[in-house]
């Protein structure tokens, strides 16, 4: 059972005259010990998904979902208290822009010690508690790679560098030993050495503790070096999700391809000063959303059929929503002739495909390992 399972989440915002679907049938799952990347441009609703999951959404926004569950418990049907308990102990969130999401009126020491739950302190005398809190706090600071804890602890958020603040946010999130960490753009505006430190830290926690991570970002380099699976979001619609490896090797959606091509680091034989691949236009605003596939006006292959919202289709674990996917020549051709053929032709096409065969052996291996870990737990 996945840790977090979101299926067809729709979020409607009242603009005064009408309801706008800021998120339209978004599906995302995070398994135990998985690093899932959520990729999208600003304004595509990444942060809205985070807010919908943690419940920090104003009352007049309408959330509907087929499933929004945490370990099988329905988050939408819960009372506020129950939900808050889960957020406190099992899910932790690192927000965007650390310096402004910390409390400006308290020192870092006060904030970190306050976030340590009372259950974690073993039952000493009450005068011993303060020291225990302090020890836990210092331990956490060291764990996330802040070596000079003395000078940091006494400072206010505006007095520290943004990368230290980011590490500190991660420390605060790790206090309650969560099972899922939601990190909202943790590597924004960092130079590559600091970014590497943060990524190593998160990757290490994932390996040693089996921490599930939902990594929200548009830094493709960071994502592809660390994440296992990836979900691409455009304008509030999930357009493609699957293993990072598969998406890189064989993107099926035009937007995913454009996004991956836009990073010059990924292209080996790119001559310097040559043109980069870019889609025309920009992401539409919420007031002017196109109907059907929201990439429509920017898509190089858009046709008449694209005014209908494409359904999510699967090829093994790789989900995509596009009427005319890339790399599926036989399927696309048959689609124009007869829509019924599409299922069989994709199967035929992929039955001869090496990529997904190798993936089968991969998943068998991972099954074995997951059985092993289950055995250990028992």
């Amino acid at each position, binding site marked *: 059972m996945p840790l977090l399972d979101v299926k067809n989440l729709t979020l409607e915002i009242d603009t005064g005259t009408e309801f706008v679907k800021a998120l339209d049938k978004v599906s995302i799952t995070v398994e135990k010990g998985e690093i899932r990347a959520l990729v999208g441009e600003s304004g595509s609703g990444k942060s809205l998904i985070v807010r919908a999951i943690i419940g920090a959404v104003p009352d007049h926004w309408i959330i509907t979902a087929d499933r929004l569950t945490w370990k099988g418990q329905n988050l939408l049907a819960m009372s506020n208290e129950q939900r808050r308990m889960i957020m406190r102990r099992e899910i932790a969130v690192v927000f965007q822009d650390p310096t402004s999401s910390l409390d400006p009126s308290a020192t870092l020491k006060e904030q970190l010690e306050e976030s340590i739950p009372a259950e974690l302190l073993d039952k000493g005398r009450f005068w011993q508690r303060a020291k225990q809190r302090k020890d836990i706090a210092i331990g956490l600071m060291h764990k996330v790679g802040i070596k000079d804890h003395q000078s940091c602890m006494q400072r206010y958020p505006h007095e520290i*560098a943004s990368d230290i603040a980011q590490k500190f946010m991660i420390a605060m999130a790790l206090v309650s030993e969560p099972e899922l960490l939601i990190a909202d753009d943790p590597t924004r*505006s960092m130079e590559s050495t600091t970014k590497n430190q943060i990524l190593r830290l998160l990757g290490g926690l994932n390996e040693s503790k089996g921490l599930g991570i939902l990594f929200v970002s548009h830094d493709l380099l960071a994502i592809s070096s660390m994440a296992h699976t990836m979900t691409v979001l455009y304008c509030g619609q999930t357009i493609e999700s699957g293993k990072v490896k598969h998406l890189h090797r064989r993107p099926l959606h035009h937007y995913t391809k454009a996004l991956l091509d836009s990073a010059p680091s990924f292209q080996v034989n790119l001559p310097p000063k040559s043109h980069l691949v870019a889609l025309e236009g920009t992401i539409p605003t919420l007031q002017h959303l196109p109907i059907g596939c929201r990439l429509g006006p920017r898509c190089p292959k858009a046709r008449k059929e694209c005014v209908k919202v494409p359904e999510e289709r699967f090829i093994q674990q790789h989900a995509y929503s596009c009427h005319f996917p890339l790399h599926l020549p036989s399927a696309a051709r048959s689609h124009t002739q007869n829509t019924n053929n599409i299922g069989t032709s994709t199967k035929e096409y992929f039955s001869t495909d090496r990529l997904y065969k190798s993936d089968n052996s991969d998943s068998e291996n991972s099954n074995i390992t997951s059985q092993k870990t289950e055995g250990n737990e028992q």
Partner: protein
Amino acid sequence: MTAVLEVKELIYTHRIRRSIFSAPDEFVLGPISFAVNAGETLALTGHNGSGKTLLAKALVGAIQPQQGSILLEGKEVEQSDKKTRNHDIRLILQHSNTTLNKAVTVGNVLNQTLQLNTKLDEQDRKAKIEQTLVRVGLLREHYYFYRHMLSDGQQQRVSLARAMILDPKIIIADEPFAALDPSVRSQTVNLILDIQRDLGMAFIFISQNLGIVRHISDTVMIIDKGKVIESGKTARVFQNPQHELTQKLIDSHFSLVDKHFGQF
């Protein structure tokens, strides 16, 4: 051929005295020397707080360096000579949404620039503005738009239009892509490359993103704590970094790239 911009032994010292009893905190930038030729791009990179933006400010004349000289096409520019400076060296900042005046239209922003720096009459100004808007990939109608009606990428284009409307010799761009999304960023990179190729402008380009630095720059200069620690042709520096810190920066960038390619 003389370089478009040449900087010789530039030194700027920034002092803050926090209290009368303590010694003042000092940040010394420089001595820095470099030259940029027409049609070339120089990239500045380095850690946060290393003095990259300070150097950009010194070049455009927003702060006054204590020593050294800045030569524009072989002639020294005085600090007081705001006219040539504003005209020939233009600056683009990271967040165009805070640098554009939100109370006036895009056309007005560009018009003010022309009014203050050229002797064109109203008709010529309007023609020039329309021509520049089209050049940066906007429409003539954007003349009447306000800042909030434009997307991030379009605002960045307006910033670029404001920089290049005076046909400057050199444009200094401080993190022009950091706030942009990947697909829009590629568009802007393409636009800058086009403009450079067509008009032969020189660029000084400040960025943390080594992928893009490597792609668009001819020479690169790495700054740490106000000192230039390494400079040279981009390809050479990236292949064979000499300084320890450069190696660290480049290694960590390439370790991410390698991890990405390692998956295949």
